[in-house]
């Protein structure tokens, strides 16, 4: 009996999961359809860029400087054992540019801007504002979702570049004042170590992350139900899903990039 109930729930979960994915893909198709038809409200996009960017910038900056500082402290101690402490600038720059800044920024962006997207759209949904948009003869996807998703796509790459610069600056401070590496040498080592392949291998990933975060968080907000409790539940779900998607897609993308690009 217990086995039968377990199997029933198991298959119900699979069916619900497939149906959910189908609905999410249909939602994405609608969003892309609007974008391809040129139905973009640029003033709304700019407003969203400002809101999403401002919300995440401080936390990303703090995390980046801390990452740069810790990475340099640890790297300097390790490399010093092998008599290669001057290589710490390259270690920090490459780590940040290729991997840490894109992933950390995407995770923070999910928790800040992503959560806001879901909560905002979710609250609008449970208060009938999305239905009201439709009733007024305006497509809610075009008016509410397209600007938010496009803003995600534009803001995250900018935040990642900012994160890389701040992280490297943090490393510079430790390298120069703690490890006594000459400042000009640290800078030249940093610039020499970063090839365009290194920069773009990390930068390209941010567009995938932004797309996944925007899609997941907007979709979860758009289908929120169950009043204020529902808004909390769907927001948590959206952030958790966005985290998982960022981490999993990063693993796959890193493997692909390393295989084809080096």
């Amino acid at each position, binding site marked *: 009996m217990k086995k039968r109930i377990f199997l029933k729930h198991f298959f119900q979960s699979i069916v619900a999961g497939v149906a959910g994915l189908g609905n999410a893909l249909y939602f994405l198709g609608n969003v892309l359809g609007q974008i391809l038809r040129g139905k973009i409200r640029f003033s709304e996009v700019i407003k969203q860029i400002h809101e999403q960017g401002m919300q995440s910038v401080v936390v990303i900056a703090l995390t980046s400087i801390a990452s740069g500082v810790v990475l340099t402290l640890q790297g300097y101690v390790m490399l010093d054992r092998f008599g290669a402490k001057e290589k710490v600038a390259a270690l920090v720059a490459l780590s940040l540019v290729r991997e840490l800044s894109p992933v950390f920024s995407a995770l923070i962006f999910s928790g800040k801007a992503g959560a806001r997207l879901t909560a905002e759209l979710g609250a609008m949904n449970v208060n009938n504002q999305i239905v009201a948009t439709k*009733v*007024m003869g305006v497509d809610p996807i075009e008016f509410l979702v397209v600007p938010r998703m496009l803003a995600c796509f534009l803001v995250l790459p900018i935040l990642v570049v900012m994160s890389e610069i701040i992280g490297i600056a943090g490393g510079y401070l430790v390298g120069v004042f703690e490890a006594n590496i000459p400042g000009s040498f640290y800078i030249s080592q940093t610039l020499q170590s970063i090839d365009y392949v290194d920069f773009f291998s990390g930068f390209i990933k941010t567009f995938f992350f932004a797309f996944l975060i925007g899609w997941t968080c907007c979709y979860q907000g758009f289908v929120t139900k169950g009043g204020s409790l529902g808004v909390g539940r769907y927001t948590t779900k959206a952030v958790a899903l966005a985290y998982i998607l960022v981490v999993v897609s990063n693993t796959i993308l890193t493997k692909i990039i390393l295989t084809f690009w080096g």
Partner: protein
Amino acid sequence: MIKVSHLYKSFNSQAILKDVSFEVKEGEIIAILGQSGAGKSVLLKHLIGLLFPDQGSIEIDSRDIAKFSEQDWLLLRKKMGYLFQDGALYDFMTIFENTAFPLKEHTQLNKKEIGEKVRNTLSLVGLEGVEQKYPSQLSGGMQKRAALARAVILNSKILLCDEPTSGLDPVRSRDITDVILNISRHFNTTTVITSHDMKNSFRIADRLIIMKDGSLVAQGTREEIESTDNDFVKEFLN
């Protein structure tokens, strides 16, 4: 103007609407009364195309809405105003921006003309001097007035009001129904109101419809409803 014929609707095999038929003439105010869960809001959502019937038909201006394309719906919705139970004003817009929204979306009016029209419509619903406030800064009654202004600002031919007096005290309830009456007469709109507020509905409606468990149990003028022999209606009126 609106003709509903033998409408049936179920959710998860639970019948919500059962053989509902009625007509609303142009310029008429109809109040649909009934207890909570009688199917009033579901019926209203069918009239604006948010829900579609399992059986039966709805005709608006002698056109079957089941055959409407997206473009037809867009054109119809420009002629219809819908007042939501909770107003459904955008939180992130001021009252001015909320009221101006349909004009910005569907007309070619310039900034000055929009401003004038918004102020005139807000004045019609008795809301002046609150243009720059956000919905959260207004009382429930004022939010409903603002939502009503937004619903009719395109000179709507049809106005649908879902429980306009719910959550309001008797004075505010009377105020909002008076505003609906004034607006309906001013714009000559065909108005359908769902409510369980008998007193105010009897006061402003040309005809009334009483629903019970998804079925229509009585319809007619105030006098016809008051003189009916139906036990449920008698109990409901008392």
